[in-house]
Every structure is written in C-alpha cells, then in structure tokens.
C-alpha cells in the first residue's frame, strides 16, 4: 500500500487510528502489527509470510542469545543463524536475479549455454526490515539491547507500517522503551500530522514534479548538454524530496501512534564534503553501515590501509544494498572513492582551501554525478549521460523543454530554496511558527487535490 494512495489516506489510516485509540491500551501493539500485515500484504499477501519468518527467527534468536548468556555462553550461534536467515532472504530475493544474469553473461561470453531461471519478484521493503531484525540480534548479542520480553512488541517493531517499506531504519534499542510504554498527547499528534503533511507535500508537489524532467531525460536516447544537466539536477532534487518526504511521513505517522523515529535527513545538499553528505543523507542507513559493517571490519583502528579498504567495502556494499545492478555498485564505489580521498587529504575535508559556498557547490556537483550513476539504467547509459554533461553530444535533443511548464519552473525555484534556505521539517516542527503550520496545511490540501487528479507515483525507495 502506498502512503499517498486513496485507500491508505481515506480508508486504512482513519480505520487504523480509530481502532488504535478506541481499543484497550494493551491491544495497541497488536493493532499496529495486524494493521501492518494488512498494509504490507495489500498487494502481495504471500510476502507477509517472509516477514513472519524473519520475525519468528529473530525473536527466537534474541531469546536464544539471552538464554546462552545466562549459561555463560556468548550466543554467537544465534547471531550466525540470524545473519544466515536475514542475509539469505535478502540474497535470494534481491540478488539472485542479478547473480544469474551476471553468470549468464559470463557463460555467454565463453560460448556456454545460459542457465534458465524464473525471475524472482523483490518483496517491497525487504532491505529495510531484514536490516532492522539483524540489528536487533546483533545489539542483543553485543549487550546493547535486552532480548525482547514480548513477542507482541517485537512483531510490532518488525512490522511497523509507517517506516516498514522505505525507512528510516529503526533500531530496536531506540524504540524498545516506546514499544512497552509510550505517551499519546494531542500536541504530539498535531505535530505528527504537520510532519506527515510536510512530507506529503514534498513528495507530491516537489518530487513528482521534478520526476517529469528526470524521467524524460534519463529515458531519452539522446540529450543535449543542457538537457543532461537539467535531467541530472531534476533527479538530484527528486530523490531528495521523494525520500525525505517519505521519511517525514513515516516520522509523522510514528508520532500519531506515540513513536519517535530517528531523523533520516539533515539538509544533505548543504554539505561541504562527501563525508559530511553521508552524515546528513539517509542517516539511519549510514549509521547502520557504520555500526554493523565498518566498525566490525575494524573501522579506522587497524591502520590506514585497512581503514581505506573498510571504507571502500562499506560503501560498495552500501551501494549494492540499494539495488542489484552494476550501476549501484559503481555508485557505492564512487562514494567510497571520495570518502577515501577526503581521508587521504589529511584534513576533515578535501575542499578545505575553498570558501564555504564553493565547497558546498563542488560537493553538490559531485553528488549530482553520483546520482547519475544511481539513476541510469545501465553503466552504458550513465557514461553516455556523463559524456553529454561534458559536451560530448550528437546534437540531438530529447525535447525536454518542449513540454516544460510553469509549474516545473516554479519547482526549480522552490526546490533549491527549500534545500538551502529552509530548516528541516523536524526543526520546523520542533518549534513551529503559525505561518509554517498554516502553509503546511494548505500544501496538504493542495496535495490531496493533486492526488485526486493524478496517478500515484510510487516512492523511489520502494524499489530498494
């Protein structure tokens, strides 16, 4: 189910909130879990089974670690089991097609027969919930979290629909207390609604408008140099407003049911280095990769060479997490390259000698190049677009500007303003001003009108 769909906004959400607040307090976590299963299974009921498997296995692993620890054992076998089950699910559903396709192209180049294979359908959100459950067993194993005392609370944690399919990645230890006891106040709900509205406006009014030029540009067989830049820039803004919009909606919905989810974006495009960018972009993922991959690999504790290797490996896997394609691997490698270069420069930032705005500008351009890799259908397409951006063009245009409208022009003005001049939604919501409250509500109404008229464009991060 999409958070911006008719059935969610006018059916699921009112019914869920009604049930949540009207039923006894003790049932609330069950209400969340049950509603989440409906939400998740709405389009593919069979995929709920996967989530149940993940839930049962990791709950049992957590308990097992607790029991082992009681007996003076480390509980490592349960962590291994959890890793195998979660990463196994992820490997099969997300990477099997990619693996077989890559193998077949190698076999074909050697003149061998290809392996016949029925493509596996990727369950929405599997990357997010497997990481969440994995983080739980690892935290319990490390002693950073207590084993879940209630299956109900754990099922609620794994399935929680607001952030289920596109994050933020919520760690068990950060919501452990809230799963047991959380407060519900009118003011909390009001702020939640405002954050939800702001996120929805970002998605519907900004991201979806930027998507028009991005889709046309990346889908075109030839572009002019200006078109290539406009397409890349459009996607840069689209992915930010799409993903941060979803995160806002998730955080807002969380507040409506008493939960505080972590901040996922902190104005990433104002960064003055790629390192800073990664502290501001998809924060829940970058901190997950740091805590559960980079640090266990040795982090920066085993000498400079290992640090660079660890950084590269972390970013490569981070890229691959986003999708099973060479473009994502290249994107991860590209990010890793800049992180290593910044670290090699010996300063906090490679661009330190430049004035602040220039540092921001150069970083932003580097980020745009990264998004070209991320969005392109293939490495060949990415290289073609890079070439066009640098003036290697056959002169043919995609007609990107033929249908350019005033709304797109306005969005191209408002988008950068929101990115560079406005505080984050959470900062606004923390100390809201009347004008912001009123504006957000009007934008929500406009978004609803827009949704009534237009088709629903799924969130970009649904595919990851």
């Amino acid at each position, binding site marked *: 189910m999409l958070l911006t769909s008719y059935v969610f906004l006018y059916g699921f959400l009112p019914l869920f909130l009604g049930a949540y607040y009207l039923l006894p307090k003790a049932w609330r976590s069950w209400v969340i879990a049950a509603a989440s299963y409906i939400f998740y299974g709405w*389009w593919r009921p069979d995929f709920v089974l996967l989530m149940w498997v993940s839930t049962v296995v990791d709950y049992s692993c957590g308990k097992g670690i607790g029991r082992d620890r009681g007996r003076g054992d480390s509980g490592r076998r349960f962590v291994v089991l959890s890793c195998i089950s979660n990463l196994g699910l992820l490997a099969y559903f997300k990477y099997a097609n990619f693996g077989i396709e890559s193998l077949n192209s190698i076999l074909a180049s050697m003149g061998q027969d290809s392996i016949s294979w029925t493509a596996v359908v990727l369950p929405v959100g599997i990357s997010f919930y497997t990481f969440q459950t994995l983080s739980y067993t690892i935290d319990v194993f490390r002693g950073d979290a207590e084993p879940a005392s209630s299956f109900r609370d754990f099922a609620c944690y794994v399935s929680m629909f607001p952030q289920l399919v596109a994050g933020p990645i919520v760690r068990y230890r950060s919501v452990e207390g809230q799963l047991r006891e959380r407060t519900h106040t009118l003011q909390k709900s009001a702020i939640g609604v405002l954050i939800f509205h702001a996120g929805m406006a970002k998605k519907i009014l900004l991201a979806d408008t930027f998507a028009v030029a991005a889709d046309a540009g990346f889908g075109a067989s030839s572009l002019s140099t200006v078109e290539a830049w406009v397409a890349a820039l459009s996607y840069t803004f689209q992915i930010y407003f799409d993903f941060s919009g979803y995160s806002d909606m998730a955080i807002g919905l969380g507040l409506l049911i008493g939960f505080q989810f972590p901040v996922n974006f902190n104005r990433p495009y104002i960064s003055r280095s790629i390192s800073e960018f990664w502290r501001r972009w998809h924060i829940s993922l970058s901190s997950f990769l740091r805590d559960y991959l980079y640090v266990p690999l040795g982090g920066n504790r085993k000498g400079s060479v290992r640090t660079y290797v660890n950084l590269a490996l972390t970013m490569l896997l981070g890229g691959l997490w986003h999708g099973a394609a060479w473009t994502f691997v290249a994107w991860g490698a590209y990010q890793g390259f800049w992180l290593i270069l910044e670290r090699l420069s010996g300063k906090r930032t490679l661009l330190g000698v430049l004035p602040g705005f220039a540092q921001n500008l150069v970083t932003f351009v580097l980020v745009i190049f990264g998004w070209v890799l991320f969005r392109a259908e293939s490495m060949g397409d990415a290289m073609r677009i890079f070439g066009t951006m640098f003036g290697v063009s056959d002169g043919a245009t995609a007609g990107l500007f033929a249908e350019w409208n005033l709304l797109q022009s306005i969005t191209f003005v408002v988008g950068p303003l929101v990115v560079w001049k406005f505080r984050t939604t959470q900062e606004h919501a923390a100390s809201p001003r009347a004008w912001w409250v009123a504006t957000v509500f009007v934008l929500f109404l406009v978004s609803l009108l827009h949704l009534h008229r237009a088709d629903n464009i799924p969130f970009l991060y649904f595919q990851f």
Partner: protein
Amino acid sequence: MDNLIQTPGGGLGGGSGSEGSMRSFTRTLATIVLVLSGLVLVGTAVVDCFFPKEIGRPVGQEARDIAEAKRNRRLRDGSLAKGFETRLRLRSRVRQSLAPYWSAVLLKTFNVVPSDLIAGKEGWLFLRDRVISLKSTRRKAVVFTGGSLAAIHRRLGIFGSELIIMPVPRKSVACASMLPDGLNPHPEFERDLVQELRARGLFTIDAEEAWEGLPPHDRYLRMDSHWANQGIKSLADAVAEIRPELVTGELELSLRERAIREPARLLSFAAIPSDHPVYRWVIGGESHSLSFKQKGADNAMKDPSSNHDVAIVGSSFTKNFSFARILAVRFGRPVYPGGLQATPFAGSLAGFATKFSGIPYPEYILYEFPTHQGIQLGAGNGSVRRSLGSFFSATSDAAIIPVPVELLRAANVAKKLGRGSKLAFASGVLLSTGDGVLQLRIRVAADAKSKWELRSTGPALAWTSGSGVEDVVIPIIQTEATGQPVRLVDLEGIGEGAVVEVEVVTDVDLSNAVELPLDDAGPNAYVSAAHRDLSGPNGAAVVQWEGRPQAIRIVIAGVDAEGNTKRIEAAFAKPQSQVALLSLTPLGLGSVDSIRIEGDMGSPKVSLASQLSNR
C-alpha cells in the same frame, strides 16, 4: 516541544516531557489543523463510502485502469487489491467534484495536463499518442494500412463499389504550429501513407492538400481531437472538385447552423468532464452544429435500402460532425451516412457491410479514417485486428473461385484442431502480391463459438466463428510479394470433434483468364510484350509453371489510367506450389505493357484474369 521529536543533531528523547516551547496560538492552530485534517480524511471517506458516484465515461488513464481492474483479479499478485483501489478512487464523489477545479487551475494557469495529453500553444490540446510514435511503428503502419485498404478495395470491388479513401491527418500534423516548439509529430507519416495508397492504385484524397491555406482553428478544434466545420467543408469541396462525377445536383439541400459550445472532449482526459461547472470556465469558444433545413432529408439518407449511389463511411469524424450532410449538400444528392464513433480502423466498414448485407452496395464508398488509426494498426492493436477481420467476415458472400489444388500441391486442407493449435501454410506455398488477391475460405464446424486469427507478415485478421457450420473468406495480406508463411491460429481452442476446412481461393476469374504469349528472353527468362488494356480495376496476372524452380521473379510493367508508369514485382524463393497471382490493382483501368518472368521453370504460362463480381 523539542523532545517530542528528534531533531538533527539532537538525541532521541522519550515520549513525554515539556511541551511548552510552542506558543499557545500556534498550539491552538496546530490542534485545529489536526482536527481539520481528520475531518477532511474521515469526511471524504464517509461521503465516498455512503454516497459514491458512478464512474462517468472513463478515458485515458482511467479507462486503462478500469480495463486492467477487470482483466486481472488475483489476490496473490495484488491485482485484486489494485482493482479495488481503482474502483474506490474512481467512484469517489469528492474526487469527481473537486478534482476538475484543480485540473482547471493547473491547465489555465500552468499549462499542466496529465500525461495522456500535450498542452500546446494558446490552450491547444493534443493526445500524446497521436503526436509521438515509434519510427518502426510508423513504418509498419504505412505498409499495413496500404495492404489492408488494398484488400478492402478488392473486396468492395467484387460488390461493384469503388473505394475513395480520405485519410484525415493527425491534429498534431495538420496544426503543427500549435504544438509546443521542439516536438516533432513526424508529418512524413501522412505523406508516406498517401503515397503508399496511391502507389497501390487506391484513389486517395489528401486532406492536407485540401486544407492548404486554412489556419489551424479552421482545421481542428482547439480542445477536441476532431476537426472543425471549415476543415470538413474544405475537404468536401476537394472531393467534389477531384471527382466531379459525384456531383449530380439532383437534390436542393441546405444546412442550418446552430451555435453550440465548442466541443472540447479532450478536457475529459484532463479530468474535466463536460458536465462539471468548471468546464465552461475552461473552454470559452463556440462552434456550430449543422442540420438539414429540409425536413425528412436525414431519414431518407439513413435508410440503407433506398438504393444509395454514394456512402460516406468513417469514424466519429464523420458520425459526429455532419460530414454526410455536408457532402450531400455539396454533391446535391443523398449520401448514406456510415459513420460510427469509437470504432478502430475498418470498424465502420465492418458496420457498413453488416447494414448492407443482402442489399446492393453503393457505387462509391468514401472512406474517411483518421491517420492515427493507421498507427494503431501498425502497432498491432487487438481491436483493429478484430475490426479488420469483422469486415472480411461480414463480406464473405463475395464471389470467389478455388485455386486448383494440383497447382498448390495439395495445400488445401481439412483438419481437426486441438486446443490452441495452428494450421500453417509454409513459406513458398501461397504466392501472391499479398493484397488479398489470394484468400482463404475457412469453414469451421463446431458446437460452440470460436476465435480465430490469420497471421502472416501483414496485419493479423481476427474474427469469431459462430456455433454450427460457418464459412468466412479472409484475404491474405502480406507486406511484400515473397510468399511468406501464413498461419491460421485457433485463439481459444474449439474443442473436441470440431473440424476446420481451409481452401485457397481467389477473387479473379481463373476459368476465363486470357493467356498471353511468352517469348524466351535469355536463359531462364521469358517475356510477354503484348500490350493489354485492362477492362476492370482489380484483375490479376496468373503465372503458372512446372517443376520446382529455385526462385522465381516476376515483373509487370504498365501504366495506370492517368498515364503514370507502374511496376509490379514479386520474388519467390524456393516456391512449393506452381501458381502465383499478382494483383493488377496498381494499374487501375490502365494497361499492362510487359510481363517478365525469370526462373528455371520449364515452360511457364501467364494469363490475365479479371475480378469476379457479385453483381
């Protein structure tokens, strides 16, 4: 307030704490927003749940969504849920009431339209799929349309009718100056199409020529997909000028104009239905509806049994825009109005054939079709395949004659078919110019209805055969004269015990064919240089040979009635049968100057046969 939510750089706070950082006014405002938001969502849900509104006439994306919802209803793959969502959304009273206002604001203020449309200059609207198409589809469309119309022309010829074709150029081509700058509708498609039809000997009136000098608003309507009255009148004038024999002046007819709101059906693609109050605000312009001043003139024209000499058959362009009336006034004679709206290419011809079943066909059949229908044919659109098949199925009482089995080497077959099975004529068996001169008489004897498709290199033709024993005569339409395979496909399976008989037939009179003398023209080459005037429009050259040559090449040179030199060529590699039929339609009522045959074929024979007639 800060500890209610996490802020960047801040820690994750508990769920309770001070809430005092929000000013009381803002707190009140936020609470009002919370309540209002709830009311908006719940109110919409209640209204839509208890007072849903019927879905009007869905178009564009809505129509596709509904079709998808009807097609797939599986729980497992989510299509059931998606269908439910579609129904819920489209039946929403709130949506149907409010969305048009927002759509109108977006259109008028920002020139923003849904993806089915392209917003042009000065408020002009275009359907996207009639502007942008694939090059390969357009190329196919030209050949498929030409082949289909040539076969239709042949079929109507048997009934004594002449087909006069009027392709109406797409709005994006006729009014290209109103498209956004930089969009190329590829007008060469229309030019190529007219050229292809004329090369095939089909009489074609080019609307582009008729509209020369007319401004865009006189050609097409600004917010509609159809033409403007002045464009229709100009085309009628052009027909009268090019074919003066159509003008008899036997009737004094005149038209009355009544001012109406300018048709703007494209607004429904922009979610602004014509019955919504905002519709008037968006359109503004006015047009005129036309009716006869003479009482009863319409009724007299509409009766198929009143021995019409002229019929106009066409799409909604004809049906909804008084084209028949305008032609009748211009010709001064009754014109049977055979327009059918919402039908694909050849759909109106199928409707016409059904109405005229058992009644003599008019001498002249003017066929109007918007050229985007040709593109749909090129794209392999299923409804076009069915409408083409319906036309030939409805005219299966046309005169035909079997092609001798011995020449085809037993290619005529009768077979029991299993579920989904195919019946194929291999490459090199059915040798013709692929414009319907060679046909298949297909007899299906079955207990239930069955669905069929005849496939070759041209457009596939689909039809439904009723229960019992039913015959249809379906032409073989191919993109080139190379003897490609032909397959008869049983689309759904006709069940046990059903029998299908297929016989290869032709619409030329083989029994009265006139043999032409052939002279040797070098090794494995023969020439007939006898000049022959053609007595009818759809004759054929019949070439026969012995043995099994490796390849055969046939070239017919001649001139059409206008004196233009024409060549008809065919090349068959590894022919299996011993006869080839080459349609002489491109020569019309002109003459054959020479026929050259090349191939190791013993002593070939060539003869000319005229078309059979039902009259």
